[in-house]
């Protein structure tokens, strides 16, 4: 009994002691995938995905355990709740999006191995970005994330739209990280050679160098707003979303945005506390324009993925309100809660689009007409997720938005909250339009839906069982999370509360 106790306490101290243990597990998973594929010479793809899922699950478990117990750590990164929450989110995103992507990759007959490799590396980059407090670590992990996402988006190399998407993503992410690097060099120079973020704010004499600080704030904004697809930097989003393979878009739209949010919040909060008024105004302007632009253009879209791209632009506008409304007692609770719910809503929607596009090969919204008759489960879960995105009670999207807007109103951002409410109504209109299209019975079915049933019977029963298992799991998970999280709002808010730093 004594031995077990001492063993457990030693294990406890090991797990507690190492903040980077989840990342090490991911790295081990990455290397195992490469070596396994090398050894197996291309067979047994199932095993590779299992490795990925197991490593993600183990990291999640360890991270969860660390979330509960509070630890202090060293120079390279700190271990406060903010970081841990974001890392946890990124792991959840990776996990669910890999569940979505298994059958897509199999059915489209592209090579299977590199896919989990790139996903692990993007997840790893995101995780390190979430807890980096060092200019160099921030830059390297940002590049890691961007590069892996770029490879993922160009994965279906025979599709020309995929090539276009990855070219655009590469060029724009290169331009934005060069702007970010320019800013980092300014900060490094003016703080007399400090690379740690805490030391930088100690050493910069804010009163003396105000024009330079403003310029560097502008550069950081340009660099990070690209990843977040805020208003003037959003041009890459629809093209990249439309061109990349669907499970990759699912992964992007949550993981890189979560990581970029963490970076944005940390940089602006830590480095520019004296400039709060100025950058608040600018971010508010950007948020308002993203919301208006995203929700207005979404009405004219004919492709589902483009529509989701524009809706994600407007969602970022809402989240920006959450960042601006952060104060001492509540921290960034509203933003983080909304982000958490958004992950499930978005991944749920993609979990429905993926099998649909696999079975009919089309992405047009008009082809969803009358889906209710062919596939009631898909329709019903898609309805749930779309309504949650729009913000209809009692689904969780409503509670997230409510909390966000209430916080914003309390913090005095009256204009933004009003604009957000109006644009939410516009987005509800659009989502309901799609839902109506799906649920109504049309006498003459669209051609693609006629082939829907045929394809389902032609696909061999083994593949369709596989299709049923993992995507179904992801679908159910996301549907449950997006409906029930609203009821469990209070504990979530409590956890996300002490995240002000």
């Amino acid at each position, binding site marked *: 009994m004594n031995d077990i106790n001492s063993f457990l306490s030693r294990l406890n101290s090991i797990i507690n002691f190492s903040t980077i243990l989840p990342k090490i597990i991911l790295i081990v998973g990455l290397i195992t995938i490469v070596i396994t594929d090398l050894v197996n010479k291309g067979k047994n793809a199932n095993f590779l995905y299992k490795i990925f899922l197991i490593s993600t699950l183990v990291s999640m478990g360890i991270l969860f355990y660390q979330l509960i117990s509070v630890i202090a750590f060293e120079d390279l990164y700190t271990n406060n709740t903010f970081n841990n929450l974001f890392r946890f989110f990124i792991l959840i995103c990776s996990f669910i999006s890999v569940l979505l992507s298994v059958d897509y990759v199999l059915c489209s007959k592209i090579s299977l191995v590199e896919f989990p490799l790139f996903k692990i590396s993007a997840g790893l980059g995101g995780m390190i970005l979430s807890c980096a407090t060092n200019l160099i670590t921030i830059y390297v992990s940002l590049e890691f994330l961007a590069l*892996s996402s770029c490879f993922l988006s160009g994965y279906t190399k025979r599709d020309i739209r995929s090539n276009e998407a990855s070219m655009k993503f590469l060029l724009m992410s290169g331009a934005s990280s060069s702007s970010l690097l320019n800013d980092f060099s300014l900060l490094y120079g003016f703080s007399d050679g400090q690379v740690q973020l805490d030391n930088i704010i100690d050493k910069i004499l804010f009163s003396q160098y105000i024009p330079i600080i403003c310029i560097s704030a502008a550069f950081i904004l340009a660099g990070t707003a690209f990843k977040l697809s805020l208003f003037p930097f959003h041009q890459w989003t629809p093209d990249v979303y439309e061109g990349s393979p669907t499970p990759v878009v699912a992964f992007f739209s949550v993981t890189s945005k979560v990581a970029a949010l963490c970076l944005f919040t940390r940089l602006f909060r830590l480095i520019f506390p004296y400039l709060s008024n100025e950058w608040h105004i600018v971010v508010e302007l950007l948020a308002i324009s993203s919301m208006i632009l995203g929700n207005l253009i979404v009405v004219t879209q004919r492709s589902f993925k483009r529509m989701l791209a524009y809706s994600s632009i407007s969602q970022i506008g809402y989240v920006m309100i959450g960042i601006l409304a952060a104060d001492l007692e509540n921290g960034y609770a509203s933003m983080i809660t909304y982000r958490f719910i958004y992950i499930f809503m978005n991944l749920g929607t993609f979990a429905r689009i993926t099998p649909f596009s696999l079975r009919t090969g089309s992405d047009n919204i008009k082809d969803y007409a009358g889906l209710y008759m062919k596939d009631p489960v898909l329709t019903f879960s898609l309805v749930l997720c779309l309504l949650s995105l729009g913000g209809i009670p009692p689904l969780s999207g409503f509670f997230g938005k409510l909390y966000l807007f209430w916080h914003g109103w309390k913090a005095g951002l009256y204009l933004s909250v009003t604009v957000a409410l109006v644009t939410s109504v516009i987005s509800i209109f659009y989502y309901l339009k799609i839902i109506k299209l799906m649920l109504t019975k049309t006498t003459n079915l669209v051609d693609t839906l006629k082939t829907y049933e045929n394809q389902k019977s032609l696909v061999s029963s083994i593949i369709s069982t596989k299709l049923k*298992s993992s995507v179904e799991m992801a679908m159910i998970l996301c549907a449950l999370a997006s409906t029930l999280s609203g009821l469990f709002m209070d504990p979530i808010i409590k956890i996300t509360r002490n995240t002000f730093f």
Partner: protein
Amino acid sequence: MNLSELIHEFILALIEPGILVGSIGTVSFINTANSAFSLGLVFTCISLLYFALNADFIAAAQLLVYVGAINVLIVFAVMIIDQSVSSDSEKHGIGYFTALGACSILFLTIVCIFHKLNDFYSSSIHQSEYLKLNLFEQNDVQNIGYQLLNKFLVPFELASLLLLVALVGAINPARDEDEGKDIAENKKKSFVSSTSPRDKSSFF
């Protein structure tokens, strides 16, 4: 000026025309291979400049990275394209004059800044402070290695993983198609045996 300063000035006077000639050559040679090679001349002269400024690590890094890797890549790409003469006519359109104006303004700005800095730093107070710093006996490489493995361990290891992923990602689109089809067929066969334990309840 004493002898060491004279030698220093002489070396600088040798290196700088090399940079100038190389960069003019890069821009104005018609044969692209010639311009790629003169780019190599520019990089080499820059690294010699670093040697003259007593920054040994950066000079070595410049030689290895820029001349040894980047320039070789550029020459390789130029050779593959195999377009020996680029047919440019000498039209001085509006873009030419805009670029000329912008570049000359930038150049004048840099010259003014350097003049002002020169006046500022050549006062005797600063020179004595610099001599106190004792820059000549530092061991750059050792310092950098120490910092890389202590303070900047995480970005260092992450950069090595980044290289791995970049390699895989670069080979992935360029790979041969037939391998993909065989692999997919093999995997389909392996599914027949392996999906029966994974058979979840049929949802439809």
